[in-house]
């Protein structure tokens, strides 16, 4: 039940947040400070997500095969590989290292 409450609550807020973007007057967007934050927020969030997804397990900082996968992904991106190739290369790297017994 706890989980259902959280799911419905989070979904309602998520939809309201998405919907809200289409109801805000465009004039607000043109305010320099708002637009600067708008422009920078995705970079901050995505960078944090990279860190959380790669280097953490719960509340612990960890270094494991995911880090190697991320390095390979970065190399693939430098070589202008398509999105799908980047993702698959990272997965294959981590899977391969774990097959060899690494964490």
């Amino acid at each position, binding site marked *: 039940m706890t989980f259902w409450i959280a799911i419905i609550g989070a*979904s309602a807020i*998520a939809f309201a947040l998405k919907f809200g973007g289409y109801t805000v007057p465009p004039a607000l967007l043109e305010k320099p400070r708002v637009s600067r*934050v708008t422009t*920078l927020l995705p970079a901050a969030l995505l*960078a944090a997500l990279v860190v959380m997804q790669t280097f953490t397990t719960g509340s612990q*900082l960890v270094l494991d095969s995911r880090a190697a996968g991320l390095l390979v992904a970065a190399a693939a991106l430098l070589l202008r590989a398509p*999105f799908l190739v980047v993702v698959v290369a990272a997965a294959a790297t981590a899977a391969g290292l774990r097959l060899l017994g690494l964490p």
Partner: protein
Amino acid sequence: MAARTDTADPQRKAVIRQGLSVAIATSLYGVSFGALSVASGFTIWQTCAISLLLFSGGSQFALIGVLGGGGGIGAAIAASSLLGVRNTLYGFQLTTTLKPRGLMRIPTAQMTIDESTAVAIAQETLPHRRLGFWVTGLGIYAGWNIMTLVGALAGNAIGDPKTYGLDAAASAAFLALLWPRLHRREPVAVAIAAAFVAAILVPVTPVGIPVIAAALVAVAFGAFRRLGDGDSTAPDTTAPTGDTT
């Protein structure tokens, strides 16, 4: 698949191809979500409901991460919602392109996520932007929900998603989404500072807080830009609570 409706415009095909490839990559990652969700203690119904109703990758992982890790409802909803705030910003950016009216605002809002926005704003013309948004958004909505179910059903049979490196695939997907933003110095500085802040807060704050703090880094950069190129801001561990805005 249905890429040959308009033969006169080769760029249309390119947009469709781009949208579908992003949709496929993102959808595959839905297997990881489905499996991880079930492994975190959610039922198959709950897992599918999250993908259908919440439909925003980062928020979904945050929700199951916090709840599965023993966090409370409030913390889980807060972490999920703070990750969803960026979708509001995407709506800002897309509203003049898509101009949704009446009931169309409902599906338009629901499809507003990282990937559909990224593909849309990458296009040169208005019709191509709309096409990019809808191909990517609808493609992911279909694929993501199917793959969520597959992951939820096969979760236990497949075993640990880590074995297949699906957690690393998620890291790579976030990096690939971040990558195109790293052409200018300021977003690079913001990304580094945000990553740093998130990393140092992980061991000392509840799950969900580091990402929120990282968002505040962007607010700080945007609001107080006079500081110049702050590349390594505040190396002390004081949490940036409420000192902005």
